[in-house]
């Protein structure tokens, strides 16, 4: 049959949010939706948002797990401010997410979960499906629980296991709605549940049933299937990647490019743990992963490995960095290469482990005793984590220094299509172990980079001692000489400053290199800021976007570039950190724009702030 309503309406972009209990499998469904959407040729960005509790009490608002995906026929910079489609698997999921919807949005609700008990747990006094609170929206009410039970009945699962298939039923419906191919997800189920054929087949049946439901059931008016044409991406081979995957692979690539094996010391912590997990699967790449007793041991083991001639790496989040602090100072003092990956989360203290923030910048820059400079770089997007991990290693090995790579929970967990780079085109990282005994001492320096030599144990004639005590510039021996300490402190600072010789000049992401207003961001806020600046420019605003990935040292031209703007606005997911550094470094009248909510910027928030700023000017 051919209903006219079944003709697919073309949309240029859609934002879908899946929400349910943390045990409802929303993240899994979201990942599958992401995969098929990417394969369908859309550009996309995702935002998984889940509670810290592994299994928060079912039905409660704080146990709600969400997964948002924004896909389009053009390039996508953020996961989207507001969902066009919300799938709410229970009352709590509806309650938590309804406020983000614009009137007219489509809400798909699983009425089967709207029991009295669930309504009460969600804190609803009246059933929102009945009291008119959904009137502003287009609502599709389906008893997904019942539909799922019927679809998987032949497999004779217990009702618990049977109900667990309802995420795939909902996914099937979305696949129908957005014209997605079922095959990749069916293949994924084959692989995932190879050893549990009944579960595999039940989920497959649920997926197909959800899809068939869309095809066959007459839907209320105004609810129809859509089509989002392919995006025009630069030609090349693509894959989806999350920031943490890209970080792990970037580290492996750095080891390969430098010809070094890598030793990773790491202690599990959200949201950094899966970098350890990814690397643990890559032992055949010459990656030795070491889950230590704590973060101090993790960084110390990495430093020990660097001393012995490997690429020492440690991965963690803010609280872990706090513990590593003293050892990072040691690596600065003994001048050994070290990559510290800080996947930032909301703080202080334990803060909000699963929520994103950019509040470790000052910790990375300054959080040590003594004058203890390190290089700091930050990744802008999930895929950029790959490149910046390589950059972190390159700088560490060039200057014999610890380098921080800052990412954050948002880009760590978020996925985006990524053009797979050609490794052969990435310049190798030069590493030389010192060999010559003549005139040797352990703090001999390259006159150009000021990096000290790297003599590794096992080399005849180079036996030497290093340590955290100050050493003499000319002999490397312990020294308490006042002038020498002054000199060594300056040398350690200058060594980091000279890395500016090999980092790219600062470019302008969007807009002119001068003008009324520069919006200066860093790290994972790239997408939101760029989208906002583009949209303001489309409305005629004179605004440019400058995005920093090298934070210490800054690119050489940054000061001059900033001086060509009348005003500087610095949006950050913290209480104003980069803005402090820019003001003190360049004496520019930079203003901060902070959001400290554990959530990424919405594009609209930034647009408003930019326009307001320009109005003040007028």
């Amino acid at each position: 049959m051919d209903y006219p309503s079944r003709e697919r309406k073309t949309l240029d972009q859609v934002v879908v949010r899946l929400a349910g209990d943390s045990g409802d499998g929303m993240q899994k469904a979201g990942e599958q939706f992401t995969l098929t959407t990417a394969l369908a040729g859309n550009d996309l960005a995702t935002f998984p948002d889940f509670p810290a509790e592994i299994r928060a009490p079912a039905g409660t608002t704080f146990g709600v797990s969400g997964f948002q995906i924004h896909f389009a026929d053009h390039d996508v910079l953020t996961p989207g401010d507001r969902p066009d489609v919300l799938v709410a698997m229970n009352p709590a999921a509806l309650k938590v997410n309804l406020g983000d919807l614009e009137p007219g949005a489509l809400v798909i609700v699983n009425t089967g979960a709207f029991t009295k008990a669930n309504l009460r747990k969600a804190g609803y006094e009246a059933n929102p499906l009945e009291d008119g609170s959904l009137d502003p929206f287009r609502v599709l009410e389906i008893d997904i629980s019942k539909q799922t039970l019927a679809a998987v009945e032949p497999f004779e699962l217990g009702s618990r296991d049977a109900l667990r298939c309802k995420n795939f039923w909902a996914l099937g419906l979305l696949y129908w709605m957005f014209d997605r191919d079922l095959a990749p997800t069916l293949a994924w189920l084959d692989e995932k549940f190879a050893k549990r054929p009944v579960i595999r087949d039940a989920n497959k049946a649920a997926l197909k049933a959800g899809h068939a439901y869309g095809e066959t059931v007459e839907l209320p008016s105004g609810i129809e299937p859509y089509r989002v044409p392919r995006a025009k991406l630069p030609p090349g081979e693509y894959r989806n990647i999350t920031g943490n995957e890209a970080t792990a692979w970037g580290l492996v690539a750095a080891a390969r490019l430098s010809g070094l094996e890598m030793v990773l010391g790491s202690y599990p912590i959200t949201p950094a743990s899966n970098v350890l997990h990814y690397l643990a699967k890559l032992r055949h790449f010459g990656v030795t992963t070491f889950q230590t007793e704590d973060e101090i041991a993790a960084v110390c083991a990495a430093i020990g490995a660097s001393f012995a001639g490997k690429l020492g790496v440690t991965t963690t989040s803010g609280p872990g960095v706090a513990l590593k602090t003293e050892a990072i100072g040691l690596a600065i003092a003994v001048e050994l290469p070290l990559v510290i990956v800080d996947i930032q989360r909301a703080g202080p203290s334990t803060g909000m482990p699963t929520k994103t923030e950019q509040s470790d910048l000052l910790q990375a820059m300054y959080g040590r005793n003594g004058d203890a400079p390190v290089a700091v770089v930050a990744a802008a997007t999930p895929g950029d984590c790959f490149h910046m991990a390589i950059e972190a290693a390159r700088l560490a090995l060039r200057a014999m220094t610890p380098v921080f790579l800052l990412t954050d929970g948002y880009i760590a967990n978020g996925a985006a299509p990524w053009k797979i780079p050609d490794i052969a085109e990435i310049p190798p990282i030069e590493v030389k172990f010192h060999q010559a005994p003549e005139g040797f001492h352990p703090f001999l320096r390259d006159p150009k980079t000021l990096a000290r030599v790297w003599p590794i144990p096992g080399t005849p004639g180079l036996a030497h001692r290093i340590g955290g005590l100050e050493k003499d510039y000319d002999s490397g021996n312990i020294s308490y000489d006042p002038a020498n300490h002054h000199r060594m402190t300056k040398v350690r600072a200058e060594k980091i400053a000279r890395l500016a010789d090999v980092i790219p000049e600062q470019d302008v992401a969007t807009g002119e290199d001068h003008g009324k207003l520069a919006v200066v961001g860093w790290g994972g806020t790239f997408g939101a800021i760029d989208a906002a600046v583009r949209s303001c420019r489309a409305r005629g605003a004179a605004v440019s976007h400058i995005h920093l990935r090298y934070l210490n040292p800054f690119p050489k031209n940054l000061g001059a570039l900033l001086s060509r703007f009348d005003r500087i606005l610095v949006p950050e997911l913290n209480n104003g950190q980069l803005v402090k550094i820019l003001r003190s470094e360049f004496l520019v009248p930079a203003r901060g724009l902070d959001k400290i909510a554990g959530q990424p910027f919405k594009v609209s928030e930034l647009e408003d702030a930019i326009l307001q700023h320009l109005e003040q000017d007028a």
Partner: protein
Amino acid sequence: MAPDTPTALTRKSFMSDQEVRWCPGCGDYAILAALQRTLPKLGVRPENTVFVSGIGCSSRFPYYMNTYGFHTIHGRAPAVATGVKLANPDLDVWVITGDGDGLSIGGNHLLHALRRNVDLQILLFNNRVYGLTKGQYSPTSLLGQHGPSTPLGSVDYPVHPLPFALGAGARFVARAIDTVQKPLMEIYERAYRNKGASLVEILQNCPVFNDGAFTDVAAKDVASDRQLWAVHGQPLVFGKNRDKGLRMRRDGCGIEVVTIGEGGVSMDEVLVHDETNLGLASLLAHLGPPDAPMVFGVLYCNPAPTYEHQALAQNELARQRYGEADLDALLRSGHTWTVSGNEDG
């Protein structure tokens, strides 16, 4: 002849050009000298030898050795040393730590290095005091120790290094005294030969802040009655006339001191040392004055595969299982798709 044929090494080969800066009379001198004498006999090469230390008077040790050395931060030497071993298991790695460094701030790392059985020789200089920071009591200080932070005497109970090590799962545990050179050298050698974490507690006198802390066992006039040097396969006897021994108690679980020939006690009843017996080692580790002698020598040696050996074997296993590492293939694992230039939306 190959140019790098090792020349015969002497004690001097292991002495660095740095002036030794411990206080006159410090037990650390003897500990250092014994090691510099032992290493040439072991046939080790300075360039393959690494000393990793924490912070403390004792942790200055690496500066005086003409080998590779890393004076790290307070308490963390076992973790740094584990990283060195994971990076290059062929290196001989020694950890130098103190009672404060290894058992207060670094107790956690020591515990884990021991239980993992990382192939390290860990020398714990026990002077029952914080030397470097000028005399505060340490976690091995006996109850009632007076110092600048405990003018009325300490009120916390001490930790005993060897029972701690055995509890942590150490597979080689020994005790020595700074001034008794020959056995100290023998223990160094045993520790070196053991593949795995070897913990050696060395009773060390700090004449400045805790002088005489061990006179009750170390003083010449009491030594033979207060020291029992355990030798694998030999009866556990001590005393000037070697007529005192240890036997299992008849009235419960534990060890008692007996005099052979007195009250009908015969040599047959005296326990024979078995270094592979954890239960026996635990009983011996706890003994000490005034009721019993303190036991020295190798109390426990029961080797097992080392951490780094097994960890690096997994790298090899991964190579066998997944094949040679292919970065391009890794980046393309899972689903990929191609966007061609002329594709129309």
